[in-house]
């Protein structure tokens, strides 16, 4: 067993599906926890069927969407509806410190693997459930995708242009990507509590409730004044200029966020128009807010004559907050992300060498332990033999009964999107 990383020795069984739960488990796996991902050929994780595929060739072991949320884990394929499959899941629960569930409320209970069942197998288990609206309540049965969670959480209403309709974030699924941070925090706190008190517990993550944390002051303002905050493009009420400006080249942009008068004067100097800072239309933030359309046009004329990279360097050197609007390719070339070693190129057993994002933080003494995402069932033998210590005979029975699924159980592969 690997014994490195901050979470070395922590054992997790991940019954998740599609993004939030698998991504949460991955964050713990990368830091050294041993995470067994339970999947099956008969009920494929939709993320395995999602683009982008390696070289555009769809296949259940070639989705970059899957690898991005499931690296550093061990994959075992279990049919939970088969008696021996359920027994196997129970063995994994007994082995684990943390059980993670990313299925609609009630699904694990139906399989006889709910919290009360798990607790009988392991009284101090930490049982983490993540769902869009929480495990109970009148709407808890809603089973949607990340774009639904984001829409329900108010994020759509706050994205886009004034007088236009609300806008989805990337893929619509912002809240899918924000929920795992809150899940990690909750699980780590529960683990520490268990270490001190010996008590396990059940954690009910409502992705909506986690997402409220991203907008807290707006709820307070609405409750006090009745004001409903909505989308305002890229502008901020208290700052100007604050926006995105077109630069030389195709679809090239620079973000500029001027937060005080000194930055404003520096911006004017860098643009070669120091007089603008004294122009009555732009001399104060109030004046700039009033004439913001005109101001943005002037700045756009300047940025349009330069590359985003060049303009950013000039502005940052002069103390003006500015940043290239990096696209998917730019991120790989970004000097800072390169310096951080953000992208790692790891050898996947089917896809070959491809990129993985590192965690967003570095630990000074216990570096993370990232390894490639598993092919479907890649670690069946490892999990059964080395983790659960099953005999060869028992393992044989599992395959015979179909409790451990194989490629033979696979329905015709259908790419999702």
């Amino acid at each position, binding site marked *: 067993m690997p014994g490195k990383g901050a979470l070395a020795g922590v054992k997790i069984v991940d019954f998740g599906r599609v993004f939030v739960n698998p991504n949460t488990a991955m964050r713990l796996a990368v830091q050294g926890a041993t995470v067994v991902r339970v999947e099956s050929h008969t009920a494929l994780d939709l993320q395995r069927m999602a683009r982008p595929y390696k070289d555009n060739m*769809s296949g259940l072991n070639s989705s970059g969407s899957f690898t991005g949320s499931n690296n550093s884990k061990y994959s075992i394929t279990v049919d939970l509806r088969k008696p021996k499959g359920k027994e196997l899941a129970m063995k994994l629960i007994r082995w684990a410190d943390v059980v993670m569930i990313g299925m609609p409320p009630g699904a694990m209970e139906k399989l006889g693997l709910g919290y009360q069942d798990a607790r009988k197998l392991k009284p101090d288990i930490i049982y983490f459930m993540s769902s869009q609206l929480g495990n109970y309540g009148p709407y808890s049965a809603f089973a949607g995708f990340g774009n639904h969670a984001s829409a329900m959480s108010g994020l759509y209403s706050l994205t886009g242009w004034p007088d236009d309709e609300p806008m989805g974030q990337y893929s619509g699924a912002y809240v899918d990507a924000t929920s795992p941070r809150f899940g990690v925090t909750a699980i780590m706190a529960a683990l520490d509590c268990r270490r001190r008190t010996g008590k396990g517990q059940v954690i009910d993550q409502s992705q*909506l409730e986690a997402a409220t944390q991203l907008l807290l002051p707006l*709820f307070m303002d609405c409750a006090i004044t009745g004001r409903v905050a909505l989308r305002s493009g890229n502008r901020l009420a208290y700052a100007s200029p604050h926006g995105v400006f077109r630069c030389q080249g195709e679809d090239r942009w620079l973000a500029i966020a001027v937060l005080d008068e000194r930055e404003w004067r520096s911006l004017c100097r860098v643009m070669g128009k120091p007089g603008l800072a004294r122009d009555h239309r732009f001399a104060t933030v109030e004046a700039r807010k009033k004439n913001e359309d005109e101001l943005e046009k002037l700045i756009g004329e300047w940025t349009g004559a330069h590359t985003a990279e060049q303009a950013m360097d000039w502005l940052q050197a002069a103390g003006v907050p500015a940043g290239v609007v990096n696209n998917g390719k730019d991120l790989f070339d970004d000097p800072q992300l390169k310096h951080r070693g953000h992208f790692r190129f790891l050898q996947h057993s089917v896809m070959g060498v491809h990129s993985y994002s590192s965690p967003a933080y570095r630990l000074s003494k216990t570096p993370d332990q990232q390894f490639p995402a598993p092919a479907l069932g890649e670690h069946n033998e490892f999990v059964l033999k080395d983790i659960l210590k099953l005999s060869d005979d028992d393992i044989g029975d599992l395959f015979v009964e179909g409790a451990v699924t194989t490629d033979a159980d696979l329905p015709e592969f259908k790419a999702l999107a």
Partner: protein
Amino acid sequence: MQETSHSENALAPYRVLDLTQGGCLLCGKLLADLGADVIKIEPPGGDPTRGLGPFYKDQASPERSLYWFAYNTNKRGITLNIETEKGQELFRRLAKTADFVLESFNPGYLDNLGLGYAALSEINPKLVMTSITPCGQTGPYTGFKGPDLITWALGGYLFVVGYPEKPVWISFPQASIQAGAEAAGASLVAHWHRTQSGEGQHVDVSIQECVTDLLWNVTEYWDLNKTIVNRVGNAWKTAHAVMRQVFTVKDGHVALLLMGGGGAGMVASDKALVGLMDEAGMAPEWLKTFDWVHEFDTMKMTQETFDKVAGPIAKFLLTQTKERLFAEAIKRRILVAPANTVKDILESPQLKARNFWVELEHPELGETLKYSGAFVQLSETPIKIRRRAPLVGEHNDEIYVNELGMTKRYVTTLRKAGVI
């Protein structure tokens, strides 16, 4: 989850010194909500975050910032000028017994004051110190100014949202809030290692990387397909079509996932939606017998097909309200949900049933204010929002006098000298 008695808070034994600002304050808030003793340390006169709106009844003043209120619940607050020698000495005294120090200053700022990780870990080797900066502690962007819009751009999220004509961010700044949430988990990961080894460490959080981390599959698209993901507005882009996902209803908008082909749940949802339309007499005959598996296969579908199908659906949705449609969606398993406003969420029956919102007294305002509740429900150690954000220097006596054992007179001297 009302099944057992509760002994203590999940993080009850730990003390956190919180020097962060802006959205990074969420880190300390999450730890405080989980029961840690979090002491927010502000410069005399108050933290710059107190200047962030919205403000209570639009009264812009340091004790009226709703931003401050929201991200500092459950914390205590003291003032301390760490730019003075005496202030540094006091901070070191506090850090000696602290479990966590959280900070979001520019790289090098605390080092220059003799309060960086190198210095603090010498007096407290078990300390977990978490630093949140725009782009990380070292590297070519170290000196960059990185307010939210800039890290949102550098991290790559800005590029992919909006119409093709122009990128757009989320109108309530998100980047540093995301980093605050990430930093809470990261601090606890480092803490776990400390419980196993006795060793503290430095946690270096990059806001830029926290933003990149939200991207789902954008970087994989480049790496695997050499495709640059671009903006498609309110839609899902597939191989041959741009599939609209926001639709207008009577009282607002909804997010509808209209897909077919491989996903069984999706075909079932499509059919259930047509069933609902049919009951209202609004389903065209051809749509009732439409082959969602083959004709609406997401991989092959053309724009023409999508638009043809979306037409009558959009027309039907205009007759619906968010609430009624969502009730049907739950019952019939239709993949549609309301695009809620902040107000809709405040009134949500689901959140009400889960007792989500809490009221906290603000004696200084003579009022009780409504707060968002627990970010997660823990059965044994439930989160309670029990304390409103501190006033400037509210707990100076409690901490300097009661805990550090100073005389009230000495505290007054420190105050007059501008140390606290």
